[in-house]
């Protein structure tokens, strides 16, 4: 058997796989940069914990409740995406994440700044594995369907996607909803593993960690997110060996990895160059003389 430490890391890897793949759906596949994934995680974590503690729901039902609540908020935050693009969207999601964190820090029912304790330890490695596999399976099915194609088309070219009959608004919100659902699921597993939750762990640094997993693994690659999540969960633990230099190395490793493989561990190389442009139209203008003059 594994030691409890390795077991814990594996559980965290599993939860982070759920987090990274679900963020990948939003950011990697649909192309909507989100720096607020931890907010969905915390919504799921708190909702599931409170469902267990206050409503006495069984573990499975609490998880579902947390995930659904997160999905509702995912749809709500998806609505500003109607208008926002790129970094503006990123900042709006970051702001949303901070708002959620501050609200949890001040609410009575969530224990506020003291945190919420006494959550039963229901999450086991088996649960996490099942949840992670289910997440990957469902996300894969979505991605390989008409829905997934629509999402990827939005990433590739939103205007063209709209011309193909894709209701981009609807599908962007759908991506946020589905992504948030699984983030909430991850959060529920998280709270039922640690038996305690506090808003401090769901700040924007956590969201950025999720984003790092996705980008490091390779945007828009399911395997990439899985590897990215595993790597970025394990590396900091591995780096504990370096004691005081740990965070220093962590920063350096992020820079170096991006230098070596800017496209992520798994991911195709794509440059920022513009798509092929049609050639000079003046040629066409000359042609008209020929035709008309004939």
């Amino acid at each position: 058997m594994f030691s409890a430490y390795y077991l814990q890391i594996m559980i965290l890897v599993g939860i982070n796989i759920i987090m990274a793949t679900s963020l990948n759906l939003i950011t990697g596949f649909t192309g909507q940069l989100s720096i607020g994934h931890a907010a969905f995680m915390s919504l799921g974590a708190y909702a599931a914990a409170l469902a267990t503690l206050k409503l006495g729901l069984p573990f499975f039902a609490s998880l579902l409740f947390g995930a659904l609540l997160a999905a509702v908020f995912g749809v709500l935050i998806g609505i500003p995406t109607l208008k926002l693009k790129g970094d503006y969207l990123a900042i709006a999601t970051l702001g949303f994440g901070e708002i959620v964190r501050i609200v949890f820090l001040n609410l009575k029912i969530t224990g506020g700044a003291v945190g919420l304790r006494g959550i039963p330890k229901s999450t086991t490695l088996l649960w996490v594995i099942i949840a992670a596999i289910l997440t990957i399976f469902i996300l894969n099915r979505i991605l390989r369907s008409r829905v997934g194609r629509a999402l990827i088309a939005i990433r590739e070219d939103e205007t063209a996607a709209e011309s193909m009959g894709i209701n981009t608004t609807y599908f962007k919100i759908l991506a946020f909803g589905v992504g948030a659902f699984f983030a909430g699921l991850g959060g529920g597993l998280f709270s039922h593993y640690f038996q305690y939750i506090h808003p401090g762990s769901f700040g924007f640094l956590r969201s950025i960690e999720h984003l790092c997993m996705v980008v490091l693994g390779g945007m828009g690659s399911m395997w990439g997110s899985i590897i990215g999540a595993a790597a970025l969960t394990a590396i900091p633990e591995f780096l504990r060996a370096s004691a005081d230099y740990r965070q220093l190395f962590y920063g350096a490793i992020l820079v170096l990895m991006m230098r070596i493989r800017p496209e992520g561990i798994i991911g195709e190389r794509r440059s920022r160059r513009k798509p092929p442009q049609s050639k000079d139209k003046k040629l066409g203008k000359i042609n008209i003389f020929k035709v008309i003059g004939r």
Partner: protein
Amino acid sequence: MFFQQLINGIVLGSTYALIALGYTMVYGIVELINFAHGEIYMCGAFVGMYLVTVFKVPFVLAFLVAMIMAGLLGVTVEFIAYRPLRRSSRLAALISAIGASIFLQNLALLVMGPRPYSFPSPFTPKVYKTSLVIISKVELIILAVSFLLMLGLTFLIQKTKIGKAMRATAQDKDAASLMGININRVITTTFAVGSALGAAAGVMVGIYFRSVAPMMGLMPGLKGFVAAVLGGIGSIPGAMLGGLLLGVAEVMGAAYISSQYRDAVAFTILIVVLFFKPAGLIGRFLQEKV
């Protein structure tokens, strides 16, 4: 009380504005969110503090040296962490920036230790009172210096040759390059100037709050970034306006709504503004050409 709070907000906002300028300049040229900017702000503050307390350098000189050193640091970070990724996806550059930020923060932690250092004010403390507001000398100096720096930056960008090159590069990098503008030089200058402004903010915040610490860049860095976006990222007047607005919003939120929800109020304002002005207050929303 309202006017006092307004002054509080403007002073806070002007430091945000200075930080936001660094973000927005870099973004305007290379479309990169320079996440390490908060750390450059911190390093600038440390250099200033060190020169003043250990080497007894006059404050004005220390201030300038801090700006220069931070400029050099900014250029170094650009060279190591961003330049190799210029042709890669923007997110790769973002992650590299985050890595650089973590690295610098923890380097400072290792070298300087975690305890905050005292940054003694070089000015004799003095408070000016009117019937409406109370304002301290340090606050007046911060306002004046911020204003001068912003004026100087505007001059640099509007009137000088390198400023023109910057504007051209921001418009279209390829075209600028074809016109014989040395893009690398423009980018280096942008990082240097942006970082120097960040350091100026760091030193001023250092003397304002009397302390310097390795973690001091984290929140102001985030706020400066938010301010830049609020104003319309890439726009220099936007950064100034965004900084001031964020500062005032935060103070008013704490004063009239709830100090517990201060940041939540500020971020709600951000989201509402973006909802109505999706490209920030001054940013141009470019309708995509079909």
